[in-house]
């Protein structure tokens, strides 16, 4: 049963509605995103309205409601990075790949995430790709780094979910 995983997570926190966020984090860790039908199960079992779960899921930028790309591209939009051109870099990436900030390319190559400050202002503007930090990026260098990404064969977490 596809509900088994979510039931396990709920069990882990003894179905305590106060632990909604950790449960959602676990759910996302297992699936790569928050599958809506699993959130429905969560809502029913915890007796937390679905609208409230949706509220939480959309409030925190770390939660996602759609499967993400194979690579994760994070752009810092903190004050310093922004002043040093992060906004322009974001626009350029979005235009090149026809996505919105927070979106995933149609081939699921990567997901672009804008965050507010990664605490590395001295390195501004900062771009993080799959956990690796690139400092002092420009529009050109950022696009070049992304163009070096490639699609792996279907073993990613997102594909595991596709059966569900």
């Amino acid at each position, binding site marked *: 049963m596809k509900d088994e995983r979510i039931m396990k997570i709920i069990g882990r926190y003894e179905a305590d509605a106060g632990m909604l966020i950790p449960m959602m984090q676990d759910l996302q860790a297992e699936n790569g995103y928050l599958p*809506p039908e699993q*959130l429905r199960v969560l809502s029913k079992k915890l*007796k937390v*309205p*679905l*609208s*409230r*779960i*949706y*509220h939480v899921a*959309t*409030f*925190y*930028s770390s939660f996602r*409601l759609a499967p993400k790309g194979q690579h994760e591209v994070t752009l810092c939009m903190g004050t310093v990075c922004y002043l040093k051109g992060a906004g322009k870099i974001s626009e350029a990436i979005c235009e090149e790949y026809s996505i919105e900030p927070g979106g995933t390319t149609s081939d699921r190559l990567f997901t672009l995430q804008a965050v507010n400050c990664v605490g590395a202002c001295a390195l501004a503007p900062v771009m993080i790709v799959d956990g690796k930090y690139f400092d002092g990026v420009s529009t050109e260098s950022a696009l070049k780094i992304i163009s070096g990404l490639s699609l792996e064969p279907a073993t990613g977490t997102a594909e595991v979910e596709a059966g569900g």
Partner: protein
Amino acid sequence: MSNKINLTIDGKPISVNPGITIYWAAKKLGIEIPHLCFGEDLPPMSSCRLCVVEVEGMRNLAVSCSHPVSEGMEVHTDTERVRRARRMNLELILSDHNIECITCEKSGDCSLERYAYEFGIKEPSFSGEKNIHPVLDNDPFIVRDYNKCILCGRCVHACSEIQYESAINIADRGFPAQISTSFERPLQETTCVSCGRCISVCPVGALTEKFRIGRGREWDLERKKTICPYCGCGCTVELCIKDGELIKVTTPKKDTINNENLCVKGKFGLHFINHSERLTRPLIKSDGTFVEATWEEAMSYIVENLDRIRKKHGPDAIGGLSSAKCTNEENYIFQKFIRACIGTNNVDHCARLCHSSTVAGLARAFGSGAMTNSMKELRTAGCIFVTGSNTTEAHPIIALDIKAAVMKNGAKLIVADPRKIDLVRFATIWLRHKSGTDVALFNAIMYVILNEGLEDRDFIEQRTENFDNFRDVVMQYTPEMAEEITGVPAEQIIEAARIYAGAETSSIVYSMGITQHTTGTDNVLSLANMAMLTGNVGKRGAGVNPLRGQNNVQGACDLGALPNVYPGYQKVDNEAFQRKFEKAWGTSLSPKPGLTVVEMLHGAENGRIRAMYIMGENPFLSDPNANRVKKDLESLDFLVVQDIFLSETAQYADVVLPAASFAEKDGTFTNTERRVQLLHRIIPPPGEARPDWQIICEVSSRLGYPMSYTDTARIMDEMAEIMPIYGGISHKRIRKFGIQWPCPEKQHPGTPFLHKDTFTRGKGLFSAVDFRPAAELPDDEYPYVLTTGRILYHFHTGTMSRRVEGLDAIRPDGFVEIHPDDAKVLKLKDGAMVEVASRRGTVTARAVVTSRSRPGTVFMAFHYREAAANILTNDALDPVAKIPEFKVCAVKIKKAG
């Protein structure tokens, strides 16, 4: 007094209770503080920052809606600094607001517009990016334009903390944040129940009634309050009218039972009054078709025929159905017409089909067959025992009291119902018994109470009688035995008994799931036993509360639209009462109790009844065994129907008279908590339609018993004189807010709860009630149990609600709820068309596969003429109350086609 807090606001000293906020303290002093996000009946959001005030010694301005008062505080609500801050906050809000005030429906009633005007803001000084949202008009009732939303969150709170549905919340964060359903679905795909409370709390034009758009500005609307004509809650509605057309419905803030709440029918379902199919002229059937006639022609025709039949067959060959939809005054006039003019007691109405077993049962046990308590007392009950009442759908406003009792006051809720009704969500325990096994369940609960010594010995000794006989029967019903009969596990029965008996005050709430059985009176007696056993009668918040289904079914009973009693439950076969009414009405009266609804209709078959006069009822759809009712109506010699629409029953009439709707007449309705409330004529009746009481008065006068009244207040005065329970009530007294009967004298304040120190009948009477199975049980040929009921979006036979576009759009067709296990056996998919057949007929309906139904039991609503559940239902009657068994019959199901 020592724990009061002293402070000054704008130099004025005030002493208040600790914990209240500056806003409320200021309000007490008559100081209005501007606010947008704060709604007085909702928790503070503290987001708009318009209510900021200056507090001496505080560095920052204080948010008055959420900042509690403290000792010695000096508050200034109108300083230059405060004004500057408020103006700035207003400008910030306006900077992302779609300023379309010249075409906005809310203009004239918009808080943002009002404050912008007060602060002289012509346009916001901040220009920049604005959110652009599509206008969401994919709901039949509510248009959501979040370009005008100021994110105050009031709608979210109303939905989650008044209605407890939580269909909406704030999605996203920061600039793109907006109110949204989960996954941005249309409202109808969420838990939304279309109560419209979100619209009423919205301070701006983000939420609008769809119907009103383009139909008139706020200042064009004429507002008048009256009472909702749907269920027995008795909500006050304010009809907003332009040029005779209902534009929208709101509700006043004060002097109502509904605390600013309405349900979908009250809020959006009253537009039927302007429907093009309203009857506007009398109709006379000629060669099988209706032809328009003048009032003169119709009256002469009616009088000629009634007179002929009365002369030839006697007065008892004529029967009248009065109406739970009509006013008290009209019911009084109608039964007076039948009794004093026609000369028979053959008068009844649809209460026979809903709560006659309540009237019979509670009158026997307590002496009075009505709700013992007030609706709002439910909020204070320690335990609420709901059985056979799908309260959220059939009495939505009372359901709000029950939900609030659980969610806000920690009341324990026991639900005993075969269906998984919505209240189960709030229940401490849910007893899912088999349909028709109520007595066994209640007896077992009482067995546990007695077995564990949880009964109220003092109450039993001092206030009741016949306890020993009762105990002998109950002590045979062990939880284990009841488990066999009811299917409820013994341990659940034990737990429920402990909860019910353990609470300080326990209130029973029930409705048709209890009454509409051949054992209806037994079921009611059993519940009365349970309340007396634990001393839960005669106290605030504790009692036995039958929820009445029609707006004025309580009143129609009170006014004697029943075959055995005169107004005020004074028995017709009691000589003293007979003399009293003969004197009052100046004519001799029959001492013989008349026939009930079903008896009258079936009486047409053997010629016992030759003519019927039906005022505002639709027995064709509301009565059991519809095929037989059809034959009965056809075999009548003469049938008069008086209604606002050409109902299914009216089709069989010889004469149809056009009546005025609730919005077109004065009078009173008595709601389910015995509150007599005044309604007001708001618009004129369409065409030549007339109020029912005027029509009846004229027929009566022409038949030789003159009745004439200048207005309905005079009728009420006459009623008050001869029925002690209404003795102190007059239209003048209830102009502001209704009074609960008994109200015997002009100074009497009314009675919120009954049987305080003594029962109406003296001592409470225990009854020994044994379990009897339903009249028709499933067998090999008809293996399923059919139970019937209502849904939120329609009312009774749908004459009104099915003529409301949005209501019918949401629930357009008849359906049958089937448990997934049964669906599997029947190889049915959700949405398949099925044939449901009983021994009395067959209907086709859409299958809804859902675990709401108990396995083996299917459910149908009876609103739909095209899938009329009452073609299937059993017309077997309760021997005492003569109520038919709508709630249990045996059916078979197969795929249609």
